[in-house]
């Protein structure tokens, strides 16, 4: 039963990540291929602060959000002038660089490759309690994203994606909106990262490799671009499917690659036949 709570928690965290990626990719047309790099920043901020300075877990969360948002902000600035393809490749590279920098520089718990041993309030230590908190936070993120995209700001984002020149002619600063939504997205990723550390109880750089950024693309690609429902659906269906595969009797050294192969195949199929995903409002046009 604890495992069930664990899966629900993991799904929620990837729903948050899907929201973060969909805000920039689906709504504002910034082709991220490396959002898991930001997840890593959030996760390590929480882990390091909690383990090495003994800061209260619930205090580390806002700091993880702030630092990840700041990282996202700073790393986007030089990439603003790139076209869609180059932007995608650069963000992919960014993910690799972040993970390798963490691998080389981040502090570790003695005798391990990564971090473990968070001290958390009792409610976060128990499976059901953590699950409840994460579900509530995810619901808040979904609610927040809904408000965001249905507000005038959301309309501006879609205009930014479809007709940036029209926005310019209305006297709006295109870069300002791109940076703003990217920073918000980074903040969401930071929150997801902090919670991810608490959920996994052990993190190391391999948890955040660029492969998971590709999987994130699969989640929002299947669910649907520019759709809040799609972000929730994609991650939920695919992670549940992956777990079902494991319970379906396949040994774990087979089920891992099988799942990865299916995800890769899904990317090809989506791009060929249904670029708007299940319930998407927008399709990959580039």
């Amino acid at each position, binding site marked *: 039963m604890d495992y069930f709570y664990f899966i629900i928690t993991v799904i929620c965290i990837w729903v948050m990540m899907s929201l973060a990626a969909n805000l920039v990719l689906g709504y504002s047309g910034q082709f991220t291929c490396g959002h898991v790099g930001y997840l890593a920043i959030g996760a390590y901020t929480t882990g390091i602060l909690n383990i090495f300075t003994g800061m209260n877990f619930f205090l580390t969360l806002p700091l993880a959000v702030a630092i990840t948002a700041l990282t996202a902000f700073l790393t986007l600035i030089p990439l603003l002038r790139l076209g869609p393809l180059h932007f995608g490749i650069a963000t992919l590279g960014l993910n690799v660089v972040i993970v390798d920098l963490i691998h080389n520089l981040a502090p570790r718990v003695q005798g391990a490759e990564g971090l473990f041993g968070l001290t958390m309030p009792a409610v976060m230590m128990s499976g059901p309690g953590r699950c409840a908190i994460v579900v509530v936070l995810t619901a808040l993120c979904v609610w927040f994203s809904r408000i965001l995209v249905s507000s005038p700001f959301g309309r501006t984002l879609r205009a930014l994606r479809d007709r940036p020149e029209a926005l310019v002619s209305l006297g709006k600063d295109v870069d300002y909106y791109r940076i703003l939504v990217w920073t918000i997205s980074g903040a969401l990723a930071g929150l997801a990262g902090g919670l991810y550390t608490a959920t996994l109880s052990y993190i190391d750089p391999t948890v955040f490799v660029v492969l998971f950024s590709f999987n994130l693309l699969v989640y929002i690609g299947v669910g649907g671009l520019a759709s809040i429902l799609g972000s929730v659906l994609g991650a939920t269906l695919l992670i549940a499917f992956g777990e079902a595969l494991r319970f379906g009797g396949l040994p774990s050294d087979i089920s891992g690659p099988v799942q990865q192969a299916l995800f890769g195949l899904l990317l*090809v199929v989506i791009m060929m036949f249904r670029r708007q995903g299940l319930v998407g409002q927008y399709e990959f046009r580039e």
Partner: protein
Amino acid sequence: MALLQVLISGLSLSGYYAVLAIGFGMIFATLRIFHIAHAAVFGLAGYMFFLFHRMYQIDIWVSGALALVLAAVFGLLIDLGIYRPLLRRGGGTFSVFIASLGLTLVFESVALMLTKGTLSVARVGALAPVTIGPVSFRWFDVEVVVPVALLYAGLYIAVMRTRVGLEIRALADNAGLAGVVGINTDRTRTAIFLGASALAGLAGIFTAYDSGMVPTSGMDLLFITIVAVIFGGSRYLFMGALGGSIIMGLVTALAGFLFPQWVTIIVFSLLIVLLIVRPNGLFG
């Protein structure tokens, strides 16, 4: 003297990069396809060579030729089966990139399933080392450079002197206009994919013979190659790819010697910086 040794292994690495780079660069320059699946073609050839030569004990030249043909056909099938339909359905460069990435993930996962991630080395026995004075290297390192040089010369003549070569250059200059003046772009495209994939196959065979294949070999090598291609730019395809590959060979060999932990960071940082500062190459 260690530095001279690094130089030699760097040049040998350059050979691998150059073979991959010219194929990748040609596809990108002519068709604007960011062909990540080049890594899968590379991997397929390497694994097939390993299978034929090491497992079935087929003669090295025969297995090499078979692997090469399979690689060329695989590359063409990727274009025919995925890229062309995708573009026909209104996809753009980014969708093609993602589909290509997806295909590579499929390849890597299947390879992981079949090999359990073990290293597949196609040769039997060790490569003979050569010692000249204080410098020792493997004869194979030099041997790689020779066919690569010959290949480059041959390719250069093919692209500069033949009709297909002329069509390829026309596509690189202006694909739309090339179609308008009556070039059969589909046929040229086929030629490009066959040729480039055979080259990727060659690199794969060399790698399988030399250091051996793991499922991620292709992607690891390809990203260094991509940096080399961006370094070179598409304006002077041959000299660019060659020059970029030599730079990257020396950079990776030197970095691997001095601070091996930082090689990946250096490669990908270079990738990002180049995309921002000089996306059309150092000489573009």
